[in-house]
C-alpha cells in the first residue's frame, strides 16, 4: 500500500511540472496583454481571492457547499436506490434503464431557467440541476457493479441456503462498494459543476452567482477567483472520497 502511494506521488510529478509551466506561460501572456478584464494573471486572481475572502468564504462558499451537500445526498439515495431496484427486479430494470439514459439527453442547462420559475431562487432550483448532473453516473456505475458480482459467488451463497436478503447484504453490498466509490469520485466534481451552473442561472448567493456578478462588472480576476474556489473544493471533496474508499475498500483489486 505504502509503496503504491509513494509510486503515485512520483507519477504525479510530471503533472505538477506541467501545471507549473502552464501557470508561468499564463502569467507571462497576461502581463504582456495587460487587460485584466479579458485575461487576468494568476497573481491578480490570487490577490482578488485574498481581497474578497470575506464574502467568498463566509457567504458564497457555504451557500454552494450547501447545494453540493444536499444534491450529493439526494443523488446517492436516488442513484444507488435506482441501481438496487434495477438489480433486484428485472421488471424495474426494463422500465427504468431507458428512462435513466433518456434523462441524460435533457439539456439541463437549457431547462434550468424553468427550474428557477418552479422553485424560485431557493436552494432547490440549484439542487435539481446538480442532481440531474450527478445521479446518472451513480446509477449506471453501481448497477454495472451489481451486474459484475461473480455468478459463482452467488451460486455458492445459494448452495449455503442463503436467502435473497442474505445474498444482498453479505455478498452484493460489499462486492459493489468499489463501483460505488468509483461512482462517487465521478459524482463529486459533477455535483460542484451542477451547483455552480444552477447558481449562474439564478441565485442570490453562491460561487457561481458571485462569478457571474463579477462578469457584469468586467472584473476578470473576480470571475476567476470563485472558479478557483469551486475547483479546489471539488478536489478536496474527491480527496475525502478517496480516503473513505481506502478505508472501506481495503481489499480492492483482490477479487
Amino acid at each position, binding site marked *: 500500500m505504502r509503496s503504491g502511494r509513494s509510486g503515485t506521488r512520483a507519477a504525479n510529478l510530471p503533472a505538477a511540472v506541467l501545471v507549473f509551466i502552464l501557470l508561468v506561460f499564463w502569467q507571462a501572456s497576461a502581463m504582456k496583454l495587460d487587460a485584466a478584464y479579458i485575461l487576468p494573471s494568476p497573481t491578480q486572481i490570487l490577490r482578488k481571492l485574498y481581497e474578497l475572502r470575506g464574502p467568498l468564504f463566509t457567504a458564497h462558499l457555504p451557500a454552494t457547499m450547501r447545494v453540493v451537500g444536499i444534491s450529493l445526498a439526494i443523488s446517492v439515495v436516488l442513484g444507488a436506490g435506482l441501481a438496487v431496484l434495477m438489480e433486484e427486479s428485472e421488471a424495474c430494470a426494463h422500465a427504468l434503464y431507458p428512462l435513466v439514459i433518456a434523462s441524460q439527453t435533457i439539456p439541463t442547462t437549457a431547462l434550468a431557467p424553468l427550474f428557477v420559475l418552479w422553485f424560485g431562487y431557493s436552494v432547490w432550483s440549484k439542487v435539481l440541476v446538480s442532481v440531474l448532473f450527478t445521479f446518472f453516473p451513480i446509477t449506471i456505475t453501481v448497477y454495472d457493479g451489481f451486474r459484475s458480482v461473480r455468478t*459463482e459467488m452467488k451460486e*455458492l451463497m*445459494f*448452495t*449455503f441456503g*442463503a436467502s435473497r436478503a*442474505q445474498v444482498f447484504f*453479505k455478498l452484493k453490498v460489499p*462486492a459493489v462498494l468499489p463501483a460505488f466509490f468509483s461512482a462517487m469520485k465521478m459524482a463529486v466534481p459533477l455535483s460542484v459543476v451542477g451547483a455552480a451552473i444552477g447558481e449562474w442561472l439564478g441565485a442570490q448567493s453562491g460561487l457561481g452567482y458571485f462569478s457571474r456578478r463579477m462578469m457584469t462588472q468586467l472584473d476578470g480576476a473576480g470571475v476567476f477567483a470563485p472558479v478557483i474556489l469551486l475547483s479546489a473544493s471539488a478536489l478536496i471533496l474527491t480527496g475525502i472520497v478517496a480516503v473513505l474508499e481506502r478505508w472501506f475498500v481495503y*481489499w480492492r483489486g483482490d477479487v
Partner: protein
Amino acid sequence: MTAKEETLLAGEGEPCALEFRDVRFQYDSEDFSIIDRLSFRVRKGEFVSVIGASGCGKSTVFRLVNRLLVPAEGTILVNGEPVTGKNQCCGYMPQQDLLFPWRTVAENVRLPMEIRGTFTMEEMERKTEEALRSVGLDGWGNKAPKELSGGMRQRAAFARTLLTGQDLLLLDEPFSALDYLTRVSMREWLLKQWEKERKTVLFITHDVEEAIFLSTRILAAEASPVTHLRSVDVPLPYPRTIKSLAEPEAIRLKEALIGLLRRQERADRPQDDAAGGGAS
C-alpha cells in the same frame, strides 16, 4: 460388477447418501437432454469420483444435486429424502476457492453457519477455530485470503464446505487451478480428511489418475448425453500414497478408463461433423 453391487445395495437397510432415479435434464439452449433417464447411487461414506470428457454433463449432475438446476423429470434423493424445497442437502466446493476478499479467512469459513443463523457467536468461533485447525490453518484465521497460497486457500474453502454441516460433499475439480506439486499434496491431504471426517464425497475430475488415487469407486460418463454412469471399483487399499498409483492394478485401471473416455471422444466427433455438414 453392477449386478453384484445392486444386490449389495438392496441388502442394505440404511438409505443411500445420494440416489438418482430416472433423472432427465435439458438446457433451454439445447435441443436434447444432456442427462437422460439417469439412475445411480452413492453409498454413505463412499468416495466416488465422476470422470468424463469436458462438456459431457458431469458438472450438470452436480448442479442438479445442489439445486442450482432443477430436473425436468425424475427424483434425486439424499439420505432417502427427495431434494426439493428450501433446504440444502450437500456441501458444495467449487473449482475456485471463491473466498470473499472483504472477509478474513475465519469470517469466510464461518459464512455457511452465519447463513443458517442457528449458532451463537461463541459456537461459530469455536467451530471455525476447530475447522481451521483440522485443515492445518491454525492461526491463519485473521489473515486476508490474498495472504494465503493457492493450496491454503483451497484448504480454507474445504473448511468452509465442512462447516455447511452436511454429510454429503460435492467437490467440483477443487484442485484443477493449483500447480502440480500442490495438487499432489492436496490429494493426499484430502484423503486424510476423508478418512478422518467419514463424509460421503462426490468428486468431479477430468484427471483419471486423480480419480484412481482418491476414490473407492469411479463413475465414468461414457457417452454424452449421459444416460448411465459406468461404475468401476478401485481395487487399491487405503491408506494410499503416491506409490499406490504404480501398482499394476492402478495402471491397468488407468489404461482401461482412458480407453473408455477416448472411445467417447471418437464417438462424439464424427457426429458433430455430420451435424455441422447437415446444417450448412
